[in-house]
């Protein structure tokens, strides 16, 4: 698929992020346009999750800036970024294990006041993941990895995001579930949500992406249309185990 001709939603410009003395992301520039699925791929430690965590305000950039819908959002606290319409399903799922599925979903809509609209989103999420409906009163920590992943994505959707950030949604899942997750991602996009996706499963991530960026040790290595990168033999050799 190719890049859409829509206005930019998220613009990251010359971003540098580090933990103490270690610089995890160096001078990264990327763009996510409205309605797109953009994938960020690269090996372990390439700086993918760091980039996402910085967009969500969990990390402060050392330099560079991040713009969301024309507004500067770097340096703003995490909870305020959620209010602007960015919801993040983090790496490792990070659901609230001692709470029920129901409570986890409610927390996803923590900032939303309109009960009727929340109910609507909730119905939509439970329709996407019928399994969550079956487990609605179960403690989230007792569910299987796949179910927890569905909950993490569903919980992020509960915030009614304009931009949905998904960090490794297929990690540790059985192949059948991986397919299900990717199908769901496309379905979510069809409902009008823009998606920024980080995946280890690079081939699948490139196939569904309109546009993709390849990171290597914190640098931008390559960018291009998802389908083109998926067919690129050099990419295949480096990241797709080909």
């Amino acid at each position, binding site marked *: 698929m190719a890049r859409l001709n829509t206005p930019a939603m998220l613009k990251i410009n010359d971003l540098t992020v580090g933990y103490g003395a270690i610089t995890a992301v160096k001078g990264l520039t990327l763009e996510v346009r409205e309605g797109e699925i953009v994938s960020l791929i690269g090996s372990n430690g390439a700086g993918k999750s760091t980039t996402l965590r910085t967009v*969500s*305000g*969990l990390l402060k950039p050392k330099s560079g800036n991040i713009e969301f819908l024309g507004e500067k959002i770097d340096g703003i*606290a*995490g*909870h305020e970024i*959620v*209010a602007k319409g960015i*919801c*993040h399903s*983090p790496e490792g799922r*990070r*659901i*609230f*294990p*001692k*709470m029920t599925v129901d*409570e986890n979903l*409610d*927390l*996803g809509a*923590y*900032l939303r006041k309109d009960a009727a609209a929340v109910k609507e989103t909730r119905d939509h999420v439970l329709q996407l993941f019928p399994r969550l409906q079956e487990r609605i009163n179960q403690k989230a*920590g*007792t*569910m*299987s*990895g796949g179910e*927890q992943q569905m909950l993490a994505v569903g*919980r*992020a959707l509960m*915030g009614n995001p304009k931009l949905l950030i998904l960090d490794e949604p297929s*990690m*540790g899942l059985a192949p059948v579930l991986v397919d299900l997750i990717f199908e769901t991602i496309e379905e979510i996009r069809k409902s009008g949500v823009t998606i920024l996706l980080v995946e280890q499963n690079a081939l699948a991530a490139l196939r569904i992406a309109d546009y993709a960026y390849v990171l290597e040790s914190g640098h931008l290595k390559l960018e291009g249309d998802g389908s083109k990168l998926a067919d690129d033999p050099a990419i295949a050799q480096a990241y797709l185990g080909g």
Partner: protein
Amino acid sequence: MTSVASGVARKKKVTPSAILMRASMIMIIGVAVYWLGLNLTSDPRQFAQVTVNGLNNGLLYALIALGYTLVYGIIELINFAHGDLFMLGAVFSFAVLTEALGATGPSATNYALLLVVLLLSMLFCAFINVSIERLAYRRLRNAPRLAPLITAVGMSFVLQWIGLKWIGSNPVNVNTVLPSSDFEVAGVVIAVKTLIIFAVTIPLLIVLAFIVNKTRRGRAMRATAQDKDASRLMGIDVNQTITFTFAIAGAAAGAAGLMWAQTTGTVAYNLGFQLGLVAFTAAVLGGVGNLYGAVLGGIIIGLIQSYNDGLAIGPGQRWSQTMVFTLLILLMVYRPGGLLGETAQEKV
């Protein structure tokens, strides 16, 4: 790789040591039940009397224990200054109610003043607790565990010093507002003070449980306790939630302080150490981090002390602390997580 180990695979093997553990536990419970049963049958009136006294103290312990457990639950810090915060609550209520307002002895006006000062005392302690978090603990949130712990010990001394400067080094008598009268129910003497403690602490505990379990704020607290970054991603203001938790913990300590001053009729600058230790034990006994555990632990310790001190057949007052801590040690051996603490492992 994440593991999805099934529960069946981890099924406990029955080993000789497990049998020994189980047998010794049953034996200890048996002795305790026998002791209580013996006293109950030999003098039921005395037993009921002692139970009422135990509940009286136990509910106050529960209010203080809540503060430990709330703070531990949310930032995994044992707030050593909490007992001293309770002391400051007692001192504050004495200074305002008894000295400044001159409310001594029961009267309708004095009861109204008592309620007002109860609120003030709660606000005062909430304010101090929030300030301590802002000034000291917040900066150390990402520091190694030992740093905030030592800071909490330091804060404990600071608060004690404030108490010392405020009322001096000798215990001060409080002319209480509460009546010293009592009445009898089936031969059991119940002090009006005890009823008032029930009337104040039980609703407070219920309100606290409601806040934590049913409100939006409470849900944010529980989320923050489990995972701070994930909470931020939900849009929860983590700093504000922690501030709120310290405020609630402080308010509970303030209420307990006033009730203590009014029911025992004495305050001292070192009150916090002793009561703090008991309340902390109550929190651990119930499972630190668990709200109901703190209440349960507080009531159990109140009862144990009371049974030990007051029952005709028993070790007597001298062994009071020994009994409490022996119970704690035994419980930690058999249930390291505390009575209501978590023992089950979560899948990762």
